[in-house]
């Protein structure tokens, strides 16, 4: 059975899935709104979490949190399920599809064959929606794709039960009940408050704008510390974390700026619109950073000077974000 599912492309998988799922249930939230209310923006540098020997960087909050926070703030009741074996998980999925209920789920990008081959690394926290079954193939609404696609039973089962970190374990979720009444204003302010608080006020050096500054400082010494080849690899990883699918650093700044813009109009608060413009500029600067970093990677030459310059750009970004989010905190704390 297939349902009439309205798919809209989005920049980020998790907020896109939430936005698309809720549109099906009659609640119209644009992607930036979900991202903002769910406090999706963040920054952490995790030098002790190594993926293939490369330190982790995240420009966002960890997977799953956006949906959780968003539904808490709006008052949506969600059913989440986790399975011990693929057959059971697929049966349960079929049962939900028969009821006409589109289901969001966690998958591994590696097994999603509709994506370009270059994107298919083992990234296990990609969100997609399955909304129907036709001729034995599942109809998929992947928020990063322009149109809906389909996938075979075997690929989907593999993707849902991928191994490695983190294991999706067939996790799936769908809204059980959407609230009749809710206060968007309150949710907006709570979301803004949490983001600005976490970006500027956590007293730890590796998170928020402090983390960005710390990374900028460490980066300057990379060529001396780990040698040219590795320094360039680490820099390349930084760009990938900043711009690739499912992650996206400058991209997140733009989504958040779009959110502040929308929120400013909704709450009639010119201050938010002004801050949105400032954050846009900061996103541009992060893109400049990725551009110069990309050139260093392409030439495969690194000297301390270029890394110092890149560090300077990143530090400037951190200072600006510190200013923007401090102001945002001042605006939102009394609400």
């Amino acid at each position, binding site marked *: 059975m297939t349902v009439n599912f309205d798919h809209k492309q989005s920049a980020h998988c998790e907020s896109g899935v939430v936005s698309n799922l809720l549109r099906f249930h009659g609640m119209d939230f644009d992607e930036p709104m979900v991202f903002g209310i769910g406090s999706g923006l963040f920054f952490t540098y995790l030098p002790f979490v190594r993926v293939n020997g490369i330190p982790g960087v995240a420009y966002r909050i960890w997977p799953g949190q956006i949906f959780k926070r968003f539904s808490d703030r709006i008052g949506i009741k969600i059913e989440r399920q986790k399975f011990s074996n693929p057959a059971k998980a697929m049966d349960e999925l079929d049962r939900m599809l028969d009821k006409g209920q589109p289901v969001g789920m966690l998958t591994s990008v590696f097994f999603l064959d509709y994506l370009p081959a270059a994107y298919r690394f083992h990234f296990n926290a990609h969100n997609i929606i399955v909304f129907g079954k036709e001729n034995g193939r599942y109809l998929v609404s992947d928020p990063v794709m322009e149109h809906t696609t389909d996938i075979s039973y075997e690929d989907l089962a593999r993707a849902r039960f991928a191994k490695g970190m983190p294991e999706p374990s067939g996790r799936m979720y769908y809204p059980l009940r959407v609230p009749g009444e809710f206060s968007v204003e309150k949710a907006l302010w709570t979301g803004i408050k949490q983001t600005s608080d976490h970006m500027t006020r956590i007293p730890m050096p590796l998170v928020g704008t402090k983390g960005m500054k710390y990374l900028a400082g460490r980066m300057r010494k990379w060529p001396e510390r780990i040698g040219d080849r590795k320094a360039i690899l680490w820099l390349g*990883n930084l760009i*990938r974390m900043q711009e690739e699918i499912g992650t996206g650093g400058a991209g997140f700044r733009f989504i958040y700026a779009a959110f502040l813009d929308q929120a400013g109009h909704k709450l009639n608060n010119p201050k938010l619109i002004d801050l949105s413009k400032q954050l846009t500029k900061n996103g541009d600067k992060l893109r400049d950073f990725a551009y110069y970093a990309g050139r260093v990677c392409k030439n495969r030459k690194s000297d301390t000077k270029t890394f110092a310059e890149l560090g300077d750009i990143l530090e400037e970004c951190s200072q600006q974000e510190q200013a923007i989010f401090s102001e945002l905190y001042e605006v939102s704390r009394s609400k």
Partner: protein
Amino acid sequence: MKQEQVPQDQENLNEGKLAKLYYATDDKGNYVKVNSIGWEPETVAMQQAWDVVNDEVETARKKVIDGEASPLLYWIKKNIMTTGMVAAYASTFGFLVRLHCKPFFFNRLSKKQLEKYAYTFRISVEELTDIERLKKNDR
């Protein structure tokens, strides 16, 4: 980022399957959604990551041909996996997978164990054990 500035670099790894969505501003500073077919720095970074993977696959292939490693090592690298991940898929232990990367132990594997590994990489047992094919596979 202005609407017109959204990059549309022809040289990309998207195979025409994907045009990512960006949030950009129009003339009045309002946000609009724009598709982008690719951006060079991102392509460079992604290509670099794949170069590392391909290098490792090639090294593994040479080792297998020289008899220093079993084909298992090649398939692990080919699928961008780690021994730990393979162990989880084949429901065995990481140290055993590392052991089976040596030809001496690989050649003594039971049919059942080989099937488990073949299932992990989604190939047949014949493909898994076929070293001749790797020799021809000169990239």
